């Protein structure tokens, strides 16, 4: 699989979540995603970017345009050096929240993606990578 294009942006504060949505939308449009595909990955990105700001003390988003020879995709990697997620199974469950949110962020972002990977360790931060492929529902 080839990474055709890559870009990293810093996400430190809540207003920057809007910038994340715009950047992801732009990439999804460039990759030829349908409107529903665009909306799903932009929404997933918004959830994960907010989580990173609210719980991970901010971090970075890396966007990668993928090409595996047959299809094109967009991978988003959210990385922070915050406190990590102590109970990952609970955090992935809908309705679980330690903050003021609805607890839909992680589980929702996973449902809105074709691929979802998460690595987290207490005190070391969290890395979440999601991928959506064009034309895959």
């Amino acid at each position, binding site marked *: 699989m080839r990474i055709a294009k890559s870009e990293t942006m810093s996400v430190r504060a809540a207003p920057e979540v*809007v910038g994340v949505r715009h950047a992801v939308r732009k990439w999804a449009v460039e990759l030829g995603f349908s*409107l*529903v595909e665009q*909306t799903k990955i932009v929404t997933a990105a918004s959830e994960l970017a907010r989580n990173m700001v609210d719980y991970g003390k901010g971090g970075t988003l890396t966007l990668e345009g993928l090409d595996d020879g047959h299809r094109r995709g967009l991978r988003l990697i959210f990385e922070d050096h915050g406190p990590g997620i102590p109970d990952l199974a609970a955090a992935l469950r809908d309705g679980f929240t330690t903050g003021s949110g*609805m607890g*839909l962020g992680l589980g929702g972002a996973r*449902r809105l993606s074709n691929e979802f990977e998460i690595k987290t360790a207490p005190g070391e931060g969290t890395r979440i990578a999601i991928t959506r492929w064009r034309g895959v529902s």
Partner: protein
Amino acid sequence: MEQRIPILKMGRFLLVSIQVDMDDRTAMTLQDDLTAQIVKHRARGVLIDISSLDVVDSFIGRMLANTAAMARILDADTVVVGMQPSVAITLVELGLSLKGVRSALNVERGMELLRSIAEGGESEAEPTDADREE
């Protein structure tokens, strides 16, 4: 930079058309402004047009649901109109059902719905949206 979404008064109703991609703070400000304006104008209904929004994530969704709940306590009904189909599809997959938020296809139908509720044609006890939820 503080951004504010304008709220228009039309008779007994308040109208809001969200035309920008709101950050979380702008969304919270709108929620606070709306509840204050409901009381100030003794409004009976609130219409929120989201046809320009190409993303509604859980935060914005929660703001809409909370606004509707607060308005209800203040004796006003809320109708959200103009949700784009791609946004509706995504919201459901995200897991947000927007329980308790009435919806209508467009501003015109939303106004009709608010008028009929205000005239007692449709009571709060018959939530049209809940029927579609399960």
